[in-house]
Each structure stands twice: as structure tokens, then as C-alpha cells.
């Protein structure tokens, strides 16, 4: 016999109380002289022996009652087969059911999804559960949602709750599952604990993470019986894993090229995959991928032309398959009426800069796209509200007023590109660019450093280029082309903590291009100017490519960047808003009110987590136009291939996890897990009976002796 709370057995020491009371009162009659003896019932005379026997009987009963109470509170358990007492007890268990609710569970084999099949398994699990047993029910996902926590089991209520549950369009954070389950196991108070994980056992999660999961599962298995209930199925699935802007200008009456990558996660080749691009739900382009081999991906370009300015909801679609959720990918493009760039020339004669910005042969200005170049001395008088991007090239220094002017300009969501020049007073820039604790520029300048070799050959770019809209085109360039760019001199810089280095020189890792966000806008900073004494960028296609990408990137808004389910959505304000709350409208039409927070003169409303896929609408104020934000699924969940039955042994060996693939195995696992029999109720009933007998003896025994009539006064 074992006990759930063995230390409470100390309560059995309480039997000392009736024994002490008995010893103290044993045969200790109180004595009195008495005048009215004639009225006493002499038949009620008590013999010492009678008292002793009765007292000892009552003493034994009281001791037994206390012992039973101690047994009840220490909650004894016996093994089903090891004790005859087991036939008086009952199987009691605390059950934790973790149901995988990631969107891979929506994959259908025929008409019924994995999630629905998992629900059926759960129903089977709870069929043998005794009403009142503690149960915890949670849905696994990126955030594990606890539906019932340590609640007394009631079949109808539980099934009702189970029916209401749906899978969520998010990936499964498997690493956190054992830890979360351990917490729930620890807080559960039950004679024996069982944990059932009902999942599709995606190979990519379970196999790849097996080594780190093993330890965690073993640890969990020490506290509870762990049963894995796989809900596997076919893994045919096509998914759009990428949908991103490649080139073009997001401007009215122009076209942009978007690339769409479709992955085939299945075993069979996908033939004739039709990919369509939609703007505001109207199909504007359609492409066909003739064949996608199993396990590979194909990319196709969609050309989307924008007719109207303003935010455009764009999406790429493929035809529905067994898992429709990942067949659509969404993005938002803010289409500008026109793009105006102000190029502030500090060195004089930087015509190649405006040529690079125009990116047209001969520097011809295009309709709805203008580049204005002014000498830096004219900058203070210039109205920045007419421009979308300001390029400060070789400007020696600026005043504090100009810094404030640029600060406000960027905060409103515009872009700033900063390049040094021969006359740049870097110390002055460091000082003037400071805005309290932050800075207008993404790095502090620390002086010019020569990066050329002894032969006068400059240092090439590092090939380690991060993924970013600006640097992505460079990633697609050949190594030869990249290595053509050579740098003789750069400014050594100290990047600020929240800046990103997009390009750096090979070897000693001098940053070349840095970026940071400022308010709703972005600032790019080159550390080398476009002069032949510094580098040969002007002679290579790199410079115009980078500038074009930057302009495109800067003329887009924060909201263009798609989010994933589970990400936060942020709405930034340029100036302190006159409202305290912003409203986010979910794709299903729910309005979510979010408070506006202010920090260091920055104002933003943040929706903690996007739960749905589709286009959210962010409304800063009641009057302001709604800004769409695209929310997509995390395609890591699209690889729906399940762990094969043969792999279970390898994956779950030495973890104590039982696999219950079939209903029979599940039934057997439940019976095997619930081997302990709880006896507290038995001892409780026994204790009550003893108390009852004690009470009856206490009252009844004396009465039986009191029958002879007493002496009358007469």
C-alpha cells in the first residue's frame, strides 16, 4: 500500500488522544454525599467491570475512527493485483489530455480531418474516467491553450467542451510542450496521473527534435504515465511558402513583380499547379507550374499592376488541396500616387547619384517618379512634405533644427538615406544626429579607415548577406559580380543596438550599409561614399540596384510586411494621438480594442497576437483610414508528413512513452496506466460506520439497563 500524502499518516498519532482521555478518566469516579437517595434509581447502578468493558470498547472504536480518518486524508493506494483490498477501492486517475491543435491537424484524409479523428480518440479516453476525477484539457499550438484546468470530470460537460474546440492556424511549439505538461502534472492532485498527447506526430518536429525531446519526455514520464496517441494520415500537401516583392515600384500605374514559391510536401508529383495573383480579391495574373516534384519547390513570378493609389490587399492562390489553409499567401502594398526623392548634395556634382536613383538611361525622369537635387545650403528652406525619401549625400553637417526636421520627416513614415562625403564632419554629425537617447542615424561615425591592400586593391564585399528586401537582389548575383566591387576607404562606425547591418566588407567585417527604423520610417546609412577614391561602386551595377531597392523599400509602409499567426501587430503614430485606444478588426470581423502606449516619445498600439489568417484592419482613430495588415500561416507546419510507426521506437526509446496507435492499444494503455486502486473512500465509509457504531453504543448501552422503576417518595 502506498500513500499519496504519507506525511498525513502522522495524523494517526491522534489515537493517543482517546487513550490519554481514557487513562485519565479510568475508574476515576467523582464522589458526593447525597441526601435525596430515595429518588435515585438504584437499578442504574454501574459496575466497574461494566464501565471498563464499555469504555474499552468505545476507546477501540474511537481509535479506529481516528485511524480511518488518518488513512482517508493520507489517501492510500494499492496495486490492483497485489492486495485483496483492491476489490473495495476504485480506479481513480488524474488525466491531462493534450490535443495538438496546430493547423497540420486540419489536413484531411478524405472527408474527416486529423483534428476530428483526434477528438474521437479523446472521447474514447474519457469513456473510462470516473466522474469527479481531475482532468486538464489543453490545445497545443504556438501558445498552448488550456481549456479545462484541474476540473472535476463530468462526461457531458467535457464532451460539450470538446465539440467546441477547433484547430488554430498556427504551428506547434513542440519544445515547450513537455515543460508545460510537467507544470500541469505537478499542480494536479490525483492518485495516479496520466498524460495523453494526441497529435499527428509530424516528422519534422518529432524526428528532428527527438534528441532534445527525449530527456524532457523522460522527465515528464517520471511524474505521470505518458501515452502518445498518434493520428497520422497521408502527407500530400501543396503549400505557398513564399510570396514576396521582387522588383518594380509600388506606384500607381506601374507593375511589380512578386515571386511565388510553391512547395510539394507530398509523395506524388504535382502537375499543372495553377498560381493566381489577386489584388483586392480580383485576379490580375495567373501562372502555371507544369510540375513540382515530390519534396521540392518551384517558384513562379506574378506581375501585378496597380491601378489605384492606397493600400492594396494582394494575395497568391493555388487550388485547394487536403490542407487549404496554406494555399493562400497574402501581402499588403501601399501604392503611392507618385514618388518624390530629394537628393541633398553636399559635395557638389554628384550627378551619378541622381542618375542611379532614376535608374533610367540618361537619367530621364519618369512620370510620377521625380528626383530633385539641391545643394546642401538650400536644404533648410526646403519643404520636406513634398518628398517621400531624402538622400543626404556628403552633407558636411546639419543644425539641430535640421535634425528635428529630418526626425519628424522620418517618423511620419518616410525614408532617409545617408551617405558620407569628403567634407563630412563626422564628429559634428555624431553630435547633431542625437535625439535624446536615440539617434537619427543607425551608427556613430568613428573616422575614416583605409581598407585597401598594399597593391591598392580595395576590399571586396562579404558574401555573408542577410535576408532583407534591400539586400536580397545582391544575394541572387553571382559571386564574380559581387567581388568586382572593391572598397578602399570606409568610415569606421559603432552601430547602435537596434540597427541592422545589411552589407559589410569581407574579412574584418567593416559595416558598409546599416539600417534602423525610426518611428514609422526607416534610415539607411552607407559608410563609404560613391567616389572612385573610396570605391568602385559607381562602376558596378551594385549601387543603382541598392539605391533602387532602398527607394522601393522606403516608399513602402511598415504594414506591407506580412505577419505570421501568433505575431504581434503594431500600429505606430507619428505624433501623440488624441485617442487612448486603437481598433484592430480581425479577418472574421471581430473588433479588438487595444490601448495606445507611449514610450520615449513613440506612440504605438500593439495587438499582442494575431490569431487568424487573412487581412486585419488597423484603425488609429475613428476618422483615420483603415490600414490592412496581412497575416499568413507559418509554413513550417505545412510539412504534414507523420512519423512512421517504425520510427516510434527510435524516437521514443528510453522515454517511457507508450504508443497507442489503435483503439485497442489505447484501451490497453488506459487499463495499464490506471493500475492503482484508491481506497480513501473505502476507509472513509468504514470510518463513518465506526463512528455510527460508537454513537449507538454510547447512547444505547446505558438505556438498556435502565428499566427498573425507582423508589417513590411515598
Amino acid at each position, binding site marked *: 500500500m502506498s500513500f499519496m500524502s504519507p506525511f498525513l499518516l502522522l495524523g494517526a498519532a491522534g489515537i493517543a488522544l482517546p487513550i490519554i482521555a481514557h487513562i485519565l478518566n479510568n475508574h476515576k*469516579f467523582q464522589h*458526593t454525599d447525597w441526601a435525596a*437517595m430515595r429518588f*435515585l434509581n438504584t437499578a442504574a447502578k454501574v459496575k*466497574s467491570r461494566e464501565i471498563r468493558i464499555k469504555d474499552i470498547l468505545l476507546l477501540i472504536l474511537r481509535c479506529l475512527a481516528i485511524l480511518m480518518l488518518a488513512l482517508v486524508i493520507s489517501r492510500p493506494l494499492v496495486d490492483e493485483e497485489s492486495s485483496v483490498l483492491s476489490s473495495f477501492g476504485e480506479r481513480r486517475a488524474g488525466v491531462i489530455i493534450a490535443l495538438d491543435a496546430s493547423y497540420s491537424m486540419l489536413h484531411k484524409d478524405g472527408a474527416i480531418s486529423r483534428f476530428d479523428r483526434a477528438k474521437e480518440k479523446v472521447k474514447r479516453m474519457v469513456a473510462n474516467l470516473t466522474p469527479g476525477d481531475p482532468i486538464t484539457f489543453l490545445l497545443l499550438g504556438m501558445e498552448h491553450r488550456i481549456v479545462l484546468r484541474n476540473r472535476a470530470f463530468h462526461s457531458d460537460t467535457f464532451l460539450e467542451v470538446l465539440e467546441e474546440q477547433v484547430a488554430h492556424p498556427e504551428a506547434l511549439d513542440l519544445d515547450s510542450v513537455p515543460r508545460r505538461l510537467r507544470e500541469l502534472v505537478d499542480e494536479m492532485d490525483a492518485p495516479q496521473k496520466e498524460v495523453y498527447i494526441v497529435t499527428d506526430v509530424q516528422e519534422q518536429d518529432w524526428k528532428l527534435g527527438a534528441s532534445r525531446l527525449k530527456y524532457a519526455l523522460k522527465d515528464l514520464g517520471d511524474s505521470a504515465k505518458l501515452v502518445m496517441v498518434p493520428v497520422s494520415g497521408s502527407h500530400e500537401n501543396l503549400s505557398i511558402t513564399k510570396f514576396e516583392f521582387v522588383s518594380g515600384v509600388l506606384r500607381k500605374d506601374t507593375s511589380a513583380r512578386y515571386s511565388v514559391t510553391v512547395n510539394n510536401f507530398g509523395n506524388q508529383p504535382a502537375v499543372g499547379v495553377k498560381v493566381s495573383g489577386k489584388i483586392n480579391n480580383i485576379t490580375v495574373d495567373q501562372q502555371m507550374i507544369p510540375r513540382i516534384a515530390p519534396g521540392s519547390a518551384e517558384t513562379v513570378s506574378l506581375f501585378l499592376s496597380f491601378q489605384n493609389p492606397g493600400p492594396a490587399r494582394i494575395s497568391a492562390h493555388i487550388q485547394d488541396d487536403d490542407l487549404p489553409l496554406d494555399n493562400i499567401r497574402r501581402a499588403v502594398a501601399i501604392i503611392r500616387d507618385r514618388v518624390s526623392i530629394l537628393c541633398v548634395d553636399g559635395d557638389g556634382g554628384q550627378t551619378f547619384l541622381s542618375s542611379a536613383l532614376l535608374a533610367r538611361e540618361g537619367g530621364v525622369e519618369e512620370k510620377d517618379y521625380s528626383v530633385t537635387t539641391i545643394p546642401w545650403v538650400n536644404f533648410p528652406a526646403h519643404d520636406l512634405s513634398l518628398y517621400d525619401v531624402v538622400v543626404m549625400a556628403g552633407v558636411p553637417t546639419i543644425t539641430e533644427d535640421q535634425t528635428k526636421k529630418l526626425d519628424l520627416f522620418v517618423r511620419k513614415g518616410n525614408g532617409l538615406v545617408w551617405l558620407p562625403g569628403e567634407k563630412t564632419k563626422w564628429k559634428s554629425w555624431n553630435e547633431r544626429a542625437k535625439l535624446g537617447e536615440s539617434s537619427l542615424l543607425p551608427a556613430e561615425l568613428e573616422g575614416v579607415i583605409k581598407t585597401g591592400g598594399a597593391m591598392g586593391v580595395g576590399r571586396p564585399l562579404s558574401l555573408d548577406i542577410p535576408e532583407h528586401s534591400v539586400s536580397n537582389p545582391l544575394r541572387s548575383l553571382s559571386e564574380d559580380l559581387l567581388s568586382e566591387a572593391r572598397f578602399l576607404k570606409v568610415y569606421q562606425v559603432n552601430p547602435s543596438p537596434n540597427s541592422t547591418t545589411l552589407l559589410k566588407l569581407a574579412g574584418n567585417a567593416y559595416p558598409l550599409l546599416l539600417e534602423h527604423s525610426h518611428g514609422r520610417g526607416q534610415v539607411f546609412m552607407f559608410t563609404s561614399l560613391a567616389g572612385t577614391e573610396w570605391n568602385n561602386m559607381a562602376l558596378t551595377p551594385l549601387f543603382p540596384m541598392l539605391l533602387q531597392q532602398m527607394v522601393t523599400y522606403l516608399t513602402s509602409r511598415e504594414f506591407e510586411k506580412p505577419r505570421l499567426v501568433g505575431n504581434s501587430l503594431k500600429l505606430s503614430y507619428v505624433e501623440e494621438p488624441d485617442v487612448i485606444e486603437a481598433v484592430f478588426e480581425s479577418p472574421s470581423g471581430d473588433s479588438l480594442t487595444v490601448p495606445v502606449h507611449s514610450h520615449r516619445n513613440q506612440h504605438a498600439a500593439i495587438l499582442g497576437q494575431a490569431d487568424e489568417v487573412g487581412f486585419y484592419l488597423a484603425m488609429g482613430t475613428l476618422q483615420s483610414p483603415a490600414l490592412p495588415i496581412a497575416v499568413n500561416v507559418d509554413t513550417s507546419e505545412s510539412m504534414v508528413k507523420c512519423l512512421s510507426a517504425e520510427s516510434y521506437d527510435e524516437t521514443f526509446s528510453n522515454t517511457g512513452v507508450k504508443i497507442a496507435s489503435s483503439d485497442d492499444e489505447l484501451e490497453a494503455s488506459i487499463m495499464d496506466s490506471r493500475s492503482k486502486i484508491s481506497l480513501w473512500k473505502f476507509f472513509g465509509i468504514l470510518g463513518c460506520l465506526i463512528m455510527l457504531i460508537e454513537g449507538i453504543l454510547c447512547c444505547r448501552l446505558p438505556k438498556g*439497563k*435502565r428499566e427498573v422503576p425507582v423508589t417513590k417518595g*411515598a
Partner: protein
Amino acid sequence: MSSDHSKVEYLKPEILKSLGNLELIAKEIVAGQKVGAHRSNLKGFSSEFSHHRPYAPGDPIRDLDWRVFARTEKYYTKLYEAETNFECQVLLDASSSMNYASGEVSKLEYSKYLAASICYLILNQQDTVGLSVFDSRLRAHVPPKSTMGILVEIEKSLREIDSLPKDSLSKQLHDTALQLKRRSFVILISDLFSDVDDLMSGLDHLKHDGHNVIVLQTLDPYELDFPFKGTWRFEGLESEEELITQPDRIRTDYLKNLDEHLTQVRDRCVRSNVDYLQLNTSHSLGLALSRFLQSRTMERMGPTSGISS
């Protein structure tokens, strides 16, 4: 009253103070040797007319009512009431059962206070009082006197009592009836833990001899409530066999038996024209006594019974 008398142990000033303004008025007129505040039933030399009766040979001629004779031509003798004092005999039961005390004061001590208080009161009214203390036999006897000096004798008698179990109350009552030469007040103070028939035979004897009998039954609160818990050994004060019992078991029966006994005593007393009062030794003696005396004043024409509160 002289200052010497205040030294008497039983005459508690706080008890007597509450009784000071009360007059003890006998229920019936007792013949007396001295003229006091009590009317005598002996018609005699007095100016207060009582009533007429037909003339009988031997009646004094001077008492003939000539005016009635003139109207009716019949002889009627005028009868007058004479004011007199009375004689009181206090009978105090000092048997062993009276020694029971659940608190500080035993029934006997309480009865002693009571007897002394009554004696003082009667003496204070210029009447005569005597005291007999008995258990199985007469233990002390103080003949009736009208001087306060008798209180000292009474106190001495009470102090010397060494209790013995009583066998019969009626024996002492019969003896008292034989001893009393005059019609008197007889006040019996006892717990009356004896046979009711035996008691009533003695009381009836006294009534038959024309005495005015008052019975004061003193009982301990424990005897009235029986509040014992646990297992107790009861040792009889009147030489009964000891009893070990659990009072919880017999309390109901005990109270029933006691109540039957008390009811019987009270009813028989009323029937025999004997005044009866039950006194609880936990209650104020002065208050109980004064209430009894008040009730006697209010209901002087008939016997009373009651329980002191």
C-alpha cells in the same frame, strides 16, 4: 433590640434588614397572654364588638344586648374580640440529610438562619417563640419565651447539634403536639425527605390540636436540578447504600420522582390546611421569607402554598 443580640450568629443583619418593616400577622387568631398586635379568637374583655349569639345560661348578664331584646324580645349575648399575642414553636429538622450542601451553605445552615430570623422577627413583635431541634429524636428544646434572651439559647442549641439520621418525622411532630399546651403557631423547617404519609400524620395531629402549622421545605439547588456529569458515587447521608452511577442516565427519572414527591407534599399540605413553602438554598433567604410573609398577609383567610423564588 439590645446591641447584645446583634452578636447572634444567625441573625444576619442583611436578612433582617429586609424584613424589618414587615409584620408577621398570624393567619388565625391565637390566644395569648399579652395584648399585642394580633386578634384573639377568645372573646373577652374588649370594646371591639365581634358578633351576637343567642343567650346561654352562664353568660354574663352584662353582655346581654338589651337593645336587641327590646326589638325582638329575644336574649342575645354580645361577643367582643380581644387583642392578644401568640406563641410560636419552631421545629428544626437537623437530621443528617440536612447536612447536604452543593455550595457553601448546607440545608441545615440555611435552615438555622431561617429559624433564627423567624425567631427574631416574632420576638421583635413582642410575641413568644420556642425552638425544638430534632433528628431521630429531640436534640434540643428551648421553651417559648418573649424575651430576646431566648435567641442566645437558641443559638447555643443550634451550635451543639450533632446530626443523626432521622427515621420518622411524624414522631417528633406527635411529641410536639403533646407538648404544646396552648394553641400555637408551629413552623416546621425540614427537607421533608421522608414518607409523606408519615409526615402528614404528624402535621394532621398538630392541626387537629388547633395549631397553625407552617411547613418550610429547604432544598439544595443540586437536589432540584441534578446537574451531575460523568460517573459519580453517591453516598447516602441517611445511612443508605452507596450508589455508583452515571447521573446522565438517571436524571430524568430522578427529577420525575422528586417532582412527584414535592407535588404530593404540597397537595397534602393544602388539603390539610397547612401552609407550605419550598425554599431553594441558593436563593436569598431574606427575599424568600419576606415573600412568604407578604403572601400570608394577603391571604390571611386561607392556607397557602408556594415555592420561593
